[in-house]
């Protein structure tokens, strides 16, 4: 039998238990909008019982533990998918920049430089495609009047316009690759900062859990959020360490072990100005497989590098082919030997300055002194429809449109993947939210539940107090 004082004590413990429930409901409500937070529940357990002659009698309830409601499997999946999303988003962003740099789009409403595209109703192309067609058309136009200095000037202007577009596109792509290198460095630093924070959180979790029973729920939530942030930057492997700590390794290199940051990611010049990743202390190259670091490298060294290489090769072959025919020609003054283009590829293609200064030197004629001959300029114009062995049997225009379509395919593919990945992530996060998210309705209900229990416990104490008064006043 507990006796009156035992019952009074039981009421006091019950008050404390219900108060903890109310406090926890308040904590949950306060963190309702904290995305890193997982709801916590107080585990109420019956207090120790004792034997009486009538049987085993209970002594009320105690707080057993405060637990966070979390599914570790979902957390792992979300972190893994975060790596995939981080990579895809970085690729999507980089490729869209490349698309903008290429400047190739269809505009059905705009008029072309000469209004010709508007007249034929097919719209304008913008970009290199338009400049390429304009240059070949200017060759055709000059072939109708090879002696015309105006037509010669137009040819040189159109050639210069094409060269400028090649130069600008090449420069923009180089600048894009350089800015992707900078992004790589920034993201590597962010990853290092997050890994240091995980190490600090490991330390705090170990200390907190050593000093008291149970788990450091809020600190573990914060660490899970940091691991998800890290996953968006780089794919890593995580393993359980001592004292509730987690260890992080990237491509087999241990970065974080317990409270220690053993290594960090750094960028280095792998040759030719190509920035790559390696472990700072061990200096071993890191082959990252996910996260934005992976996405940046994939886009930079994949589609964007290929785009730049293809454009350079296209411009290089154009220079060679045009110059080869131009070399057989003669200017209005009978001169020969001036190349039409100078430079080697898209980065430095230019119309020969000598011709620009004196359009009469443009070698349109195939016979010295015969100014009305147009065989050379017609040959240059016919390059537009000539299938080039160096371009897999395509014409210059066809090759360019293939380059554009190839970039478009890559972006389109990444766009689809990003959408699919978004659906997966939304579903996983939705599942996690349904398990770990705070419901204000639930917390309000708990609040009432614990409040009523608290009132009942207080009523028990009042009743026992009155009973004690009765007992004390039995004898007067």
């Amino acid at each position, binding site marked *: 039998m507990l006796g009156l004082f035992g019952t009074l004590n039981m009421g006091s413990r019950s008050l404390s238990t219900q108060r903890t429930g109310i406090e926890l409901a308040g904590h949950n409500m306060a963190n309702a909008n904290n995305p890193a937070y997982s709801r916590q529940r107080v585990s109420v357990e019956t207090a120790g019982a004792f034997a009486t002659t009538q049987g085993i009698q209970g002594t009320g309830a105690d707080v057993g533990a405060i637990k966070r409601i979390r599914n570790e499997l979902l957390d792992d999946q979300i972190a893994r998918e975060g790596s995939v999303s981080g990579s895809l988003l970085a690729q999507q962003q980089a490729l869209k920049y490349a698309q903008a740099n290429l400047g190739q789009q*269809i505009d059905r409403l705009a008029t072309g430089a000469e209004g010709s595209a508007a007249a034929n109703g097919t719209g304008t192309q913008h970009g290199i495609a338009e400049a390429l067609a304009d240059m070949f058309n200017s060759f055709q136009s000059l072939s109708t009047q090879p002696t015309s200095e105006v037509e010669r000037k137009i040819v040189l202007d159109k050639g210069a316009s094409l060269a400028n577009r090649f130069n600008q596109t090449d420069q923009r792509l180089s600048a894009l690759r350089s800015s992707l290198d900078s992004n790589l460095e920034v993201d590597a630093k962010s990853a290092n900062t997050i890994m240091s924070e995980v190490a600090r959180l490991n330390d705090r979790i170990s200390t907190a859990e050593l000093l008291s029973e149970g788990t450091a729920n809020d600190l573990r939530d914060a660490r899970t959020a940091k691991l998800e942030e890290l996953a968006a930057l780089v794919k890593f492997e995580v393993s359980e360490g001592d004292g509730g700590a987690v260890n992080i390794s990237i491509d087999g290199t241990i970065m974080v072990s317990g409270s220690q940051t053993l290594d960090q990611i750094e960028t280095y010049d792998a040759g030719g100005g190509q920035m790559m990743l390696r472990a700072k202390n061990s200096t071993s190259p890191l082959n990252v497989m996910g996260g934005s670091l992976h996405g940046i490298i994939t886009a930079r060294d994949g589609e964007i590098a290929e785009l730049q290489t293809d454009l350079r090769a296209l411009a290089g072959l154009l220079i060679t082919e045009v110059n080869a025919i131009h070399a057989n020609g003669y200017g209005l003054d009978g001169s020969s030997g001036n190349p039409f283009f100078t430079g080697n590829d898209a980065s430095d293609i230019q119309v020969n300055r000598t011709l620009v200064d004196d359009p009469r030197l443009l070698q349109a004629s195939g016979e010295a002194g015969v100014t009305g001959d147009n065989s050379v300029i017609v040959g240059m114009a016919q390059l537009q429809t000539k299938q080039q062995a160096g371009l897999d049997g395509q014409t210059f225009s066809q090759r360019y449109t293939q380059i554009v379509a190839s970039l*478009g395919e890559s972006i389109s593919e990444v766009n689809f993947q990003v959408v699919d990945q978004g659906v997966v992530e939304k579903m996983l996060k939705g599942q996690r939210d349904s398990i770990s*998210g705070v419901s204000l309705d639930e917390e309000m209900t708990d609040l009432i539940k614990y409040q009523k229990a608290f009132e009942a416990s207080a009523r028990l104490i009042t009743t026992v107090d009155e009973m004690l008064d009765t007992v004390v006043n039995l004898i007067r």
Partner: protein
Amino acid sequence: MRVTSNSFPTALINQLGDLTTRQAKLQNQAATGQRIQLPEDDPKAMRRVLDMQTEARSIDQYQRNIERQQEAATASYTVMKSLKTISDRANEIATLADGLDSPQQLAIYANEVTELIKHGIQLVNTTHRGDYLFGGTRNNTAPFVASYSDDGQVTSVVYAGNDSLPESEIGDNVKSSGHTLGENNSGSGPRGLITDSRSGADLFAHLISLQNHLRAGDTNAVANTDRAALQRDEENLIYHYGLNGATQSRLDVTLSLLKERNFSLSSEVSKEVDADLAQTLVRLNETQNAYQAALQSGGSILGMSLLDYMR
């Protein structure tokens, strides 16, 4: 499934985001009338459209080339008509001279023939857009150069042009020319307008011969030699009349075909690029309705909680 306080707002934000993106895309399609603008929108269609636009731009240029050739052909025809008048008058004089024996009368005709030759030289040295029309590709100098005697008679006319026609493309690897050669004695290629070895035409030489025979009073030579020679020149001119007409007709037909091809390309590009405006606007309307419904239902649900019913 347990729905928490953040499940609903998160889902609503995602739904509103999706609907806004869809509205922006449809609005852009409605405003531009285009289904695709960038390579990523439809890479395969983009490639086809770029190829077709390049072809359309080439066709535009071929049309301009044809117009240039038509200009040259028309200018050449004008010269031919005037040469025909000269030839007619020379034939007439050759016939009239047959019955004359007055040296004074013959000298008057001889002077007229001299003037006809000078006028003819002036005609065949016509320029078009700064280039000589009948000099072949050697068109920067006058193709017909005359020599005169002290008393102003034409003694010879030499051709300074060449026998290459200035051709330009009117289709992929299809060349044509609106020009006519002044002289071709090579026995191959296009015939010369004034002198041609295959037809035996040599208008200026024959006119000079007529001029000389008239001045010498050699009416027999006029009747037996010059009239036949001038007849060959006349026939050669008529041949070029026909050829010029055929060339212009061919250019007209080609121009018409190119315009049709351009129209066809425009339709094909339209099929690839243009948005179906009716469908786009209906879908935009549907999306706007869905957006309004999401806002309205979201707003009413978000505003309610258990707190509203607790005192």
